[in-house]
């Protein structure tokens, strides 16, 4: 089981801020998980999309392990 989190415009489009996802036996990358959970909303999501795994910036091609938290969000605008 992994936790998937969404922030800002991604959260609004997904209509929720988090969900739990059962990893299949085959390993999945962060972007494959996004495709699986976003479904038809994938094309509505802002681009580029940033990925964080376990609270650190990560590449969408990175493999997700059981127990991980993966977050998807738009480019950041602090400061």
């Amino acid at each position, binding site marked *: 089981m992994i936790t998937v989190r969404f922030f*800002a415009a991604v959260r609004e489009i997904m209509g929720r801020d988090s969900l739990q996802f059962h990893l299949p036996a085959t390993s999945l990358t962060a972007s494959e998980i996004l495709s699986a959970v976003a479904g038809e909303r994938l094309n509505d999501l802002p681009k580029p999309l940033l990925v964080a795994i376990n609270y*650190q910036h990560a590449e969408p091609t990175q493999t997700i392990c059981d127990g991980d*938290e993966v*977050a998807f969000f738009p480019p*950041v*605008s*602090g*400061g």
Partner: protein
Amino acid sequence: MIIRLQTEDFDPEREAEKIIVQGAGARVSFVGTVRDVAHNKNVTGLEIEHYPEMTEAELRRIAQDAQARHHLLDILVIHRFGRIQSPDRIVLVTVWAAHRAEAFQGCQEIVDALKKRAPFWKKELTREGDYWVPGQTPTDSR
């Protein structure tokens, strides 16, 4: 090193004066405020969202990188989240160093990295509607 996330306003001078740093010959502060006009619209305020579990850790990584590179003696970062009115303060970055060059460079580097890496998102509130501010990514060269 102090990293603080809060909803309430802060007094930049008072926050910096509270910290006594041995060996410091320079202190440089950056204060970011809410712009009252953006994209030709009157901005009444901001709503700032962040990723609580990641924000502090990312700000600490940014500050530690700059500390090592510029020999900074101490660093204070305060960033607000939630509803902020125009023209209130959003962020304070203060650094202490032995000399001014390291202090200027270190402060600028932290602010630049914060804007590309720290997981905050601003929504500008205007009379014509609210909209997300275009952001930056860790690989942006700006």
